[in-house]
């Protein structure tokens, strides 16, 4: 077993789709509208489009693409701060590839790389640490972003830097947390999501218990889901079953990796290095309390915000951008006025067009494809 192909079997998918179809027709909604399932994680958005699942599912069921693409929710001010740091002559700025093209107020990291700033794409924060060790006369900054999935790797890299006495390594920390984000979605006016596809890889860190409030207080089902087509279809089936039976519980489809209690060995470094920010500014969603983390005092010497004396500024998106509405599920990507016109993956105006996990980019790149599953 390789834990990939087994979960992509097209025949199996067809059978489950049939069951989903049947369940959908048995569910009665109070209002005349489709059943809406929000996939919180950008990884799910990507899979849904890549395999054309949105086109295979019955019309009565709709995916709402949630705010779970960390690159997409980066506010312009953060990109501006990255640029501010990277423009120092003695700085090597390191980042995951996804963040390179995100537009700031006037430029992206890619733009200033073309102008000569030393910006390097890395696969892992440990690669950034190695660059620091090899370039002792430079200040090496790692741009840390992502949900809980990515936090342990950043934290462990800082712990290693401290242990090895590396003095020229800094973290520009923009990690965000999932629970306040889901809560913000649930509390937003006009919210009418019927159930959630829970982010599988965040869940393997935090476990499924933190989601309990979604069932207890908001009476919505959530199923922690894997990322292969069959994982997603099975999870949808599980949510629909709950809806049919009038239930709202937290379930775990991704039990080969996710445990109720999460992963203590991954949570420990997060605790060691980070503390909650009072609030964090999101593109399109505004400020959400306790939705981000920063480097704590114990690791202050590695904090780029301290080293480069960064100020918190808010920069609003251009008026034509409707990323906020799309993020909240109020608008579909193609309903944005500039979708596919002024805003394309080649020349993104809004952040949702940048990463392949962004709802707009995924819709643009895969939206018109016929399903890959049945074609296989």
């Amino acid at each position, binding site marked *: *077993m*390789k*834990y*990939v192909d*087994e*979960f992509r079997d097209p025949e*199996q998918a067809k*059978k*489950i789709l*049939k*069951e989903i179809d*049947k369940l959908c027709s048995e569910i009665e909604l109070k209002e005349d509208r489709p059943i809406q399932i929000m996939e919180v*994680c*950008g*990884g799910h958005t*990507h899979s849904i489009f890549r395999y054309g699942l949105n086109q295979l599912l019955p019309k009565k069921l709709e995916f709402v693409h949630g705010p*779970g*693409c*960390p*690159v997409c929710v980066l506010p312009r001010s953060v990109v501006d701060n990255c640029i501010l740091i990277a423009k120092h002559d003695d700085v090597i700025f390191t980042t*995951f590839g*996804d963040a390179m093209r995100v537009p700031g107020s006037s430029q992206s990291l890619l733009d200033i790389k073309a102008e000569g700033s030393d910006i390097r794409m890395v*696969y*892992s*924060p*440990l*690669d950034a640490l190695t660059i620091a060790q090899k370039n002792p006369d430079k200040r090496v900054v790692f741009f840390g*972003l*992502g*949900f809980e*999935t*990515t936090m*342990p*790797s950043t934290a*462990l890299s800082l712990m*290693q830097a401290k242990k090895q006495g590396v003095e020229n390594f800094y973290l520009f920390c923009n990690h965000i947390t999932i629970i306040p984000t889901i809560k913000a979605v649930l509390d937003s006016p006009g919210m009418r999501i019927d159930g959630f596809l829970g*982010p599988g*890889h*965040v869940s*393997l*860190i935090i476990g499924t218990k933190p989601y309990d409030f979604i069932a207890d207080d908001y009476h919505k089902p959530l199923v922690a889901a894997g*990322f292969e087509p*069959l*994982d997603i279809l*099975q999870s949808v*089936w599980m949510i629909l079953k709950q809806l049919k039976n009038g239930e709202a519980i937290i379930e775990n*489809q991704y*039990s*080969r*990796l*996710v445990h109720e209690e999460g*992963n*203590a*060995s*991954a949570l420990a*470094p997060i605790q060691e290095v980070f503390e909650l920010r009072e609030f964090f500014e999101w593109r399109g969603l505004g400020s959400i309390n306790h939705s981000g983390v920063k480097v704590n005092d114990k690791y202050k010497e590695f904090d780029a915000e301290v080293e480069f004396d960064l100020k918190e500024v808010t920069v609003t998106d251009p008026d034509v951008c409707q990323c906020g509405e799309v993020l909240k599920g109020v608008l579909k990507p193609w309903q944005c006025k500039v979708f596919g016109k002024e805003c394309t993956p080649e020349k993104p105006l809004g952040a949702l067009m940048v*990463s392949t*996990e962004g709802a707009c980019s995924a819709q643009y790149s895969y939206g018109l494809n016929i399903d890959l599953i049945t074609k296989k």
Partner: protein
Amino acid sequence: MCLGVPAQIKEIIDSDNQIAMVDLSGVAREVNIACVLDNTHQAQDLIDKWVLVHVGFALSVVDEEEAHKTLKILDEIGELSATMEDLDQGSR
């Protein structure tokens, strides 16, 4: 961003720094295994195990038994629809 890939641990190459070599779809790659170790699980126990790799870190060990259970459930959902078809055809 939060994507991960299953890979199989082949060798522990640096137990002090918790580094293992994995086979990631046919490519040999170094990964940090700090997040899949605890008091009861030593590095050596991980050889041949499958882990989920994300940005150079193994984040969780794949539970084979649970994977089989999930596949079995998927089968059962499939069978449900097969039985339905039989019934449909029988009634024609």
